[in-house]
């Protein structure tokens, strides 16, 4: 086990997969100089400019070219810089990557990974702060992964690269410096498996990505008042781990879903509705209000799910 950052863990995973499989390559803007967050630093030196491919500012073509390159047997890792810019390449992802295998009757596959860093970070305002994971979970053909720890960023990115389906891989920008133990030269983690971060019998809290830090704090606070919350990191949004979530909710009979994304139309609705359908348990969702993210810190804070909100929401279920 080695202590490393979430950023470093992602880089390591990519480097190891590139060493393992010559079909893997990465493409995106500024990758040759390490990428916008430094998450590719040093890779061009090891793998050369062909496999760590600097691209023009052409998001549509980056994604579209990755589709073509995947159809003929390579495994592209596409860097979108901020998930917000991936909105310039939605046709390529949703109409092409996600559907090609199906439309063509299984003749081709599109084993690409698109890395789309999400979330609020350093007062970036409405065009650099979005969390649109719910969109992709709604699209047949796509896998959606949202790692929250260095170990997960390592193991899940490996799994995403090995996956034969197109994967939307959403790192959280606020997690880049987060440190944690990672097993170097370790294994890929299974996609589609949630992890129970904390056990408890009073209510189940499901969350993913950056907001988990706040959720853990809230769970601590609840514990301080004698409420034992079970906290589940969903890790993969599609396919989501219904078994783990429903088993927990069946025990606690109370389910709170928390996400950084806008609450209305967010993936919390899917999970809450499923639990209500399947178990008839009491459910509640927390997410951002339906606001664009503002720039000024006190305004931006309105979009951030707080520990106090989580504790309060949990209490309404008790």
């Amino acid at each position, binding site marked *: 086990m080695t202590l490393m950052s979430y950023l470093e863990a992602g880089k390591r995973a990519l480097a190891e997969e590139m060493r393992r499989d010559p079909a893997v390559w990465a493409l995106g803007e500024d990758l040759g100089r390490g990428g916008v967050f430094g998450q590719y630093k040093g890779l061009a030196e090891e793998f050369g400019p062909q496999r760590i491919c600097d691209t023009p500012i052409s998001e*549509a073509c980056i994604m579209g070219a990755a589709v073509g390159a995947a159809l003929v047997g390579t495994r592209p890792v596409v860097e979108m810089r901020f998930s917000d810019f991936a909105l310039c390449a939605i046709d390529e992802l949703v109409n092409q990557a996600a559907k090609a295998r*199906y439309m*063509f009757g299984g003749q081709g596959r599109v084993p690409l990974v698109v890395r789309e860093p999400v979330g609020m970070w350093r007062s970036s305002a409405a065009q650099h702060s979005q969390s649109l994971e719910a969109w992709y979970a709604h699209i047949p053909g796509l896998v959606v992964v949202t790692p929250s720890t260095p170990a997960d960023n390592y193991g899940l990115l490996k799994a995403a690269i090995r996956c034969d389906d197109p994967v939307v891989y959403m790192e959280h920008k606020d997690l880049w410096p987060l440190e944690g133990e990672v097993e170097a030269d370790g294994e890929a983690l299974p996609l589609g498996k949630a992890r129970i971060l904390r056990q408890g019998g009073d209510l189940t809290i499901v969350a993913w990505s950056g907001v988990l830090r706040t959720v853990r704090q809230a769970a601590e606070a609840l514990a301080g008042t004698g409420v034992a919350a079970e906290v589940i990191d969903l890790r993969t949004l599609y396919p989501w781990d219904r078994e783990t979530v429903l088993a927990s909710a069946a025990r606690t009979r109370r389910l709170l879903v928390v996400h950084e994304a806008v609450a209305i139309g967010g993936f919390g609705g899917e999970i809450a509705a499923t639990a209500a359908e399947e178990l008839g348990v009491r459910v509640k969702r927390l997410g951002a209000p339906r606001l664009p993210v503002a720039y000024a810190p006190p305004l931006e804070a309105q979009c951030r799910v707080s520990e106090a909100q989580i504790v309060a929401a949990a209490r309404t279920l008790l």
Partner: protein
Amino acid sequence: MTRANIDVERLREHFRTMARIRAFEEAAEAGQKSGEIRGAVHLSVGQEAVASGICANLRRSDYLVSTHRVHGHTIAKGADVTAMMAELLGKAGGTCQGKGGSMHIADFSIGMLGANGVVGAGIPIAAGAAHAVKLRGGSEIVACFFGDGAVNRGPFLEGLNWARIYDLPILFICEDNGFAATTRTRSLTGGPGPAARAEALGIPARIVDGNAVEEVDAAAAERVTRIREGGGPQFILAQTYRLKGHTAHDPATYRPAAEVEEKQRRDPIELCRETLLLRGVPAAALAADEAAARVEIAAAVAAARAQPWGDESLAWRDVQDMGAPA
């Protein structure tokens, strides 16, 4: 420049290919009109010389990326017409098991990477395929067809720039049939046109009479040779005319009948026939070619018709492995 000295057998082969495309699309048109073919069908009647002229210069291992107006390119690349017709009918034996229909025909066994329902979307995909070929040091080339309407979409610029900067083995073919659906493309295309745009992106462009199959063939031969020799991306603008409506449902009343009649006189099959007659091929031989094409297509239609629909479970397959629907 027409290559009047084209080999007669080669020209005759073009005639046969064009006749097969024509016969296929006439059958498709009939199927659409009768309702047997439900999804949209875009006919390339009048544009067959582009498909035949270009694809005659491709190897089976080369790749092809097409558009919604896909039949000609795919037949010329060597696809099985029964499987294609079955696809239009939605049968499980179709090229795509009936999941795609005309707008999504693909045949990976001959390097045909797909039609596309989204105008211009094939261009980046083709660039990416060529990129992959280059990455793995392959010798294949990619032929990427698109219409004159597609040059007003962003992916045209992004894809051509991409091919240029990475110096990819790709031939872009802009099939200028004068229309984008009901719109005269020229009226909404600024500047001198597609070839000038390609040149401004650093890609050598050549303009050819897209109804003269020997001219398309010659231009393609030259450009394909350049690409195979490492000359990087090339561009051909083939000027032609869409003799039918945008879809097989479209009566195309937005253009004068006289214009169509005039263009009909430059039907590429007729132009080819004239040259072949001049070169001594008997009229009867050509009529026999056409009859053979019709027979072949009629048999394809019959065979496709006889095929069963796909089982419902087919709808659930090939979505994705991870999280496969159940």
